[in-house]
């Protein structure tokens, strides 16, 4: 009995051992803060200068304050609008570039391009925003150029469209390279024989793209959409720096995270906790919804295709 056991070498334990660092890090840096955020959201607890108020248990008063007296919903709407303004062009250009770069007929040398389009992502968002802040300021180079060309100058950061547009443009610039590379990987993962078969059948580039590429990269598209959405809800550094933390004009570029940051200004752990919990729930719901919606689709498309094939 004993001999038998010693002969069996259990490799399974190594799996657990190697997983320990992850779980320890996750516990310390993610789970405990997460739980303590929930806990903190039920307390009145803030600093006024050097004076501490609380912590005092106040039940769901913080949540009431967020829903009744704050404009979190407006800020969420701002966030989503700015995110969509950046994401739509981002997915369009990424798909286009990914399709071109992977197209064997075009025979593009893509190495340099891939590096260049990824570049903006390597720059710190804060530095990038500072650059844009200077470039698009009232007497900055962009306005000088406009005046030089005989066009009227535009006060980008005093206009709703200008400010939101710049934030969206920055997000687009920073992330389209990343998305392109992910989509390229997805397209290259498709069996080449499918494209070959389509070409033999006489499909043009658009048809190939629409009927073969798109359906097969749907899961990756879902992944891109979800990660971008979650990233979008957490949009903070670009608008914070571009608008000096105020979400000008008239708080129309104030994102939900910037609002959260406003509470951290006075170390208002209670209100900040409540806002965080709400954002957490919203993120969860959105993720589940989008994930379900998109991952279900390929099957439906297959069914449709079969039906079509049948009727022909």
């Amino acid at each position, binding site marked *: 009995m004993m001999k038998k056991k010693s002969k069996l070498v259990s490799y399974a334990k190594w799996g657990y051992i190697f997983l320990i660092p992850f779980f320890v890090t996750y516990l310390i840096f993610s789970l405990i803060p997460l739980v303590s955020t929930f806990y903190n959201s039920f307390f009145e607890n803030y*600093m006024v200068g*050097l004076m501490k108020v609380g912590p005092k248990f106040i039940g769901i008063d913080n949540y009431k304050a967020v829903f009744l007296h704050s404009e979190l919903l407006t800020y969420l709407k701002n966030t989503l609008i700015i995110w969509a303004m950046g994401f739509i062009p981002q997915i369009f250009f990424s798909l286009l570039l990914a399709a071109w770069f992977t197209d064997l007929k075009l025979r593009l040398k893509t190495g340099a391009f891939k590096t260049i389009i990824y570049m903006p992502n390597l720059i710190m968002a804060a530095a990038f925003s500072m650059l844009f802040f200077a470039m698009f300021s*009232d007497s900055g180079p962009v306005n000088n150029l406009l005046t030089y060309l005989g066009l009227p100058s535009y006060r980008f950061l005093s206009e709703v469209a200008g400010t939101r547009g710049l934030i969206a443009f920055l997000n687009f610039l920073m992330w389209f390279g990343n998305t392109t590379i992910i989509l390229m990987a997805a397209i290259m993962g498709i069996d080449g024989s499918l494209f070959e078969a389509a070409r033999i059948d006489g499909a043009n580039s658009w048809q190939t793209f629409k009927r073969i590429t798109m359906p097969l990269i749907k899961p990756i598209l879902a992944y891109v959409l979800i990660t971008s959405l979650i990233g979008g809800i957490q949009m903070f550094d670009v608008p914070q720096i571009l608008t000096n933390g105020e979400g000008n*004009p008239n708080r129309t570029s104030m994102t939900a995270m910037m609002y959260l940051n*406003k509470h951290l*200004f*006075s170390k208002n752990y209670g209100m900040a906790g409540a806002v965080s919990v709400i954002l957490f729930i919203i993120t969860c719901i959105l993720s589940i919804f989008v994930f379900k919606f998109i991952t279900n689709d390929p099957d439906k498309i297959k069914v449709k295709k079969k039906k079509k094939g049948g009727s022909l």
Partner: protein
Amino acid sequence: MKKKLVSLLLVCIMAMMSLVGCGTKKPAVATQTPENQGKVLNIYCWNTEFQDRFEYFKKSGKLPADMKVNFIVTPSANNAYQNALDAALLKQDSAAADDKIDLFLVEADYALKYVNSDYSIDVINDVGLTKEDVAGQYQYTKDIVTNTSGVQKGVTWQATPGLFAYRRSIAKEVLGTDDPVKVQAALNGWTAFDAVAVKANKLGYKMLSGYDDSYRTFSNNMAAPWVDKNNKIVVDANLMKWVDQTKTYTDKSYNNKTSLWDTTWAKDQGPTGKVFGFFYSTWGINFTLLGNSLATPTTEGGKAEVGNGIFGDYAVCAGPQSYYWGGTWICAAKGTDDLPVIKDLMYTMTCDSATLKSITTDTQDYTNNVAAMKEIAASSFKSDFLGGQNHIALFSEVAPKIDMSKISPYDQGLNESFQNAFHDYFNGKVEIGVALDNFYKSAIEKYPNLSR
């Protein structure tokens, strides 16, 4: 096999690198142990002004040669400086002796917050200055840092009456004179000021650069402090006057739509600027205006002399309404281990009339010694930057009039929120009521204990 060797090699290198990392870190920690107590002076501040002034203390020879001076600079915008200082002060008790804050600087806008806390200490009984030492200072500079029980907790080397710095060349064109007395006569009171704005506009000049320029002249003349006894925010009628005036100036393009401290604002003060004048305070002349007026900055080899940009084209007058702006107080932090040095520093920089006189004559800053300033005012001292004007004479007249009785610990945060909220109104983006709402929102986010 080869692959295994390579990976083994990589692992070894990584392990070595992490060990090397430890090796270099350890001695660094060792130097921080409190074996050399009282040899480090940690100073919290928000810009480099004090660092420049500190040279005078070094020159006095009272700074121990082996003393290490750390300036911890955090810019003050968005309360960043106060937040950094608060965080450090809250850790003061547990910090190692050499990591403790020894000195910190405060501005009039929030001096009360620190003066009324236990983190600042008595400059007379704890630091060791005498009542006679500080007797020569302007009374208001002592009042502002005196807490509710009458203990003085800070000292300053400067007095900061507000002023209006105007361009001599533009004044000549608009008013026919650049003489400070005559210009002051033309700008005396807001009605006169507005009339000059109209004239300047007709000749293609802007009266002011931006929205916030005249803010301080209104906010310093409020009827009551920002926050009343019930922690309610009170928007003073005088502030609404600022709103109305600035809206008019913006709509009629008497200003250039800039914000305080932004690059366009700074450019307006330079050779290409078309702005009549700027509201400033004494420190602004040498710390900001001089640098902005040069065509070739000193960092690029330019010299601060006539011929470089518009050096010499500015002059100062009291302006339409008396006010003050800023001022930097030196406070000693509770728990400091460098009291003797701090005493010497406070004495040299704020009580020693010889040092204060040389600061004024070298840098044109207005320093905190009534007698010394009167002496310079009566002398033949003149500022080349201000076209030969003896501006000290002007300040020694207005400095005793400064009234800081309406300050509150919330001034900086509320002033910033108020200015910012109304930029949207000036830009024509929102109605006045919405701007006011936005101000309250921002204010209560900053100070949850306040109410509307």
